[in-house]
């Protein structure tokens, strides 16, 4: 239907993103609880979630701060987790690049895993959409995701330190991260990147300032990119 209105593409975005409430809400709750347990007050916890809106990077920073890693290491490691946002930005640029700057500035703030994943698939499937329809769809995908992220963080921060010890919340973060990564290991390159990262991080765990993680991250990225390049070469040959 080439006659879809921007209103209807917004609605499609809302519908497509609704299932993500189930992922975002527990993750936000976890961040709120873990941040409060680590000693952040309500203002700090909420500002964190509202300014950064990226759970994995936020939990990474929190974990490293709890470990007393130097501030610069905390920032570099957490930003490395968010480097993928630059890839999302590059991948959507051809589709929404011509939109007005204020719209792109807003979209950039809301560029999260869920909105990117849905929009990238949709834009590819519907090349007939106008830039306005694409923007409307993008903001539609945000509506069920980001408000729940803020609210869940708030709920977690309020529950905070009343979480009993037997819940072993120390291990909620590792389990959540593994659960996010494992389904993303779609190709041999992804698996290789993750394996090298694990091996290097364990071998270099003795290094001070969590430097092992930085080396592991870089080694993992290079491995993933190199395996992908070789796989492409082999299938082209």
């Amino acid at each position, binding site marked *: 239907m080439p006659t879809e209105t921007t209103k209807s593409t917004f609605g499609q975005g809302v519908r497509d993103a609704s299932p993500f409430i189930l992922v975002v809400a527990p993750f936000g709750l976890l961040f709120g609880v873990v941040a409060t347990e680590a*000693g952040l007050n309500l203002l700090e916890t909420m500002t964190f979630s509202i*300014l950064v809106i990226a759970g994995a990077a936020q939990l990474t920073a929190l974990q490293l701060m709890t470990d007393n890693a130097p501030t610069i290491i905390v920032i570099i*490691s957490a*930003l490395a987790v968010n480097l993928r946002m630059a890839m999302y930005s*590059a991948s959507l640029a051809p589709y929404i690049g011509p939109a007005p700057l204020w719209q792109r500035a807003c979209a950039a703030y809301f560029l999260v895993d869920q909105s990117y994943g849905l929009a990238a698939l949709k834009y590819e499937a519907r090349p007939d959409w106008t830039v306005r329809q694409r923007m409307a769809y993008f903001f539609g995908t945000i509506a069920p995701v980001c408000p729940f992220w803020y609210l869940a963080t708030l709920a977690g921060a309020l529950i905070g330190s009343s979480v009993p010890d037997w819940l072993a919340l120390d291990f909620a973060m590792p389990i959540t991260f593994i659960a996010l*990564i494992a*389904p993303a290991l779609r190709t041999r390159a992804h698996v290789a990147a993750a394996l090298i990262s694990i091996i290097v991080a364990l071998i270099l765990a003795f290094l001070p300032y969590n430097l092992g993680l930085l080396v592991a991250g870089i080694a993992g990225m290079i491995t993933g990119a190199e395996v992908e390049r070789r796989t492409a070469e082999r299938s082209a040959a």
Partner: protein
Amino acid sequence: MIDTATIWIVIAALGIGSYFFRFVFIGLIGDRALPAWVLRHLRYTAVAVLPGLVAPLVVWPPATEGQTDAPRLAAALVTIAVGLWTRNVLLTIAAGAITLYAGLYLAG
């Protein structure tokens, strides 16, 4: 306890840095394409950093003062297996949590 100044510096740096990453291409570079090798590296940042962050926490959990702990190790392995098998994040978290609590209960 983490000191207040550190928290605010980290929040500000992550807020600005993350926004920059998100804005840089759709905002500044527009619809010009990036070199393939850059995109190829960016694609693997999350799967390269997060496993390296988690692995030491699984093998040497801070909650047990770094002693390798059977319930936590088992929970991590089950989470990996269920994640690879089902590709469903929520189901995977549930499987990991159940394994952890069963393990902690059995270990007393």
